[in-house]
């Protein structure tokens, strides 16, 4: 069984690389490409992108001592050392046996190394730290780890993605695979590649995580959203990042 998972993992790596090598044949699109020019400009201009307010806050938090250890993130992680980190999460941290996403990783650092309380989901501090870390991977290709232990979690994510849910009996795949590019009311359905997280979503008028976005979709389906700490989100994030492998990170993204 284990061998089978590894074989499957290798196969998907090959397919993804092949798709990238094809260049123009890669039909994947970032949600950025589906936005109007005004919003693209808002994201591109760091002096106008509201997400940059949070990157700046995150940078300040990164250097501020916290917890019983009275250590800051910067005490262990030097300037620029977070480059590439956001491109490979979720991942299984050292000495752990299950994957965490970037927010989970930040909170692990807080509890284990700073000996501080974890930051609340979607709190400004957590999102700002995440934005600051993700910003350092901007322009880098999404590079999920090849860790074979991730395969069953990814498979679980893929299963949730294709599972019909809620009163409307729809799945993620029905909209974002089968009908991407069509109009749901006036809105172009994106392919759901997590290239810009955390994103400044105009509907929220705030920065938010991929989890918050996934919850939006579940609520739209009239399905019961998972709790913020549910492993289902990490599984979905693993699957989505693998699906977007090789696409470039844009954090902090702006989306309608």
């Amino acid at each position: 069984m284990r061998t089978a998972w590894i074989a499957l993992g290798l196969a998907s790596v090959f397919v993804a690389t092949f798709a990238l090598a094809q260049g123009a044949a890669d039909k994947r699109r970032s949600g950025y490409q589906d936005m109007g020019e005004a919003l693209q400009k808002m994201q591109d201009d760091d002096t106008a992108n509201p997400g940059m307010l949070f990157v700046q806050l995150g940078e300040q938090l990164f250097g501020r001592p916290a917890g019983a250890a009275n250590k800051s993130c910067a005490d262990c992680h030097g300037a620029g050392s977070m480059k590439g980190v956001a491109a490979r999460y979720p991942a299984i941290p050292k000495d752990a046996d299950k994957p965490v996403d970037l927010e989970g990783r930040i909170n692990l650092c807080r509890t284990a190394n700073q000996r501080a309380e974890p930051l609340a989901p979607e709190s400004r501090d957590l999102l700002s730290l995440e934005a600051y870390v993700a910003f350092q991977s901007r322009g880098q290709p999404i590079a999920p780890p090849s860790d074979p232990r991730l395969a069953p979690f990814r498979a679980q994510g893929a299963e949730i993605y294709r599972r019909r849910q809620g009163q409307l009996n729809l799945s993620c795949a029905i909209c974002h695979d089968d009908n991407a590019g069509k109009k749901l009311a006036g809105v172009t359905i994106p392919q759901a590649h997590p290239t810009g997280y955390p994103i400044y979503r105009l509907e929220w008028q705030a920065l938010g995580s991929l989890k918050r976005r996934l919850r939006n979709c579940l609520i739209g389906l009239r399905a019961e959203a998972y709790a913020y700490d549910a492993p289902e989100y990490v599984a979905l994030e693993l699957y989505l990042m693998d699906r977007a492998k090789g696409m470039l990170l844009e954090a902090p993204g702006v989306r309608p």
Partner: protein
Amino acid sequence: MPSPPDRRAFLAGAALLTVLPLSAARATPDAMAAAIKEVVGEGTIREGKVKLDLPPLVENGNVVPLTVSVESPMTPADHVKAIHVFNEKNPQPHVFSARLGPRNGKAVIATRIKLADSQKIVAIAETSSGAFWSASADVIVTLAACIEDVT
């Protein structure tokens, strides 16, 4: 020390502008005309000299980029004193008033506004000689499909 989630900021995102209660005051073309009259008084408004840039179709009315540019030498003798922007369907017709002068060099300002619905936006420039120039633009606001609001 963890900081609590910013509940207000979170809630701010949880409902849309489009769910404004019907009982709330709502600007109308008439209310907009009245608000403009308050600024312009008996002055005459002419079309021209002002350029109002807004995307014709916006994906979300919560954050709509807007730029107003006015042709003016911006000298002490001849400059734009103020730029006013109005809308006809938000709860209030007034959006903002910017005060300028020769120290600005050019009469160009940009900001981001909220639009509760598809509507007309009007920008009026007031010059140092007391003249009023205007431009207007129609903006279509796409209705959000998947919203977070749970009822």
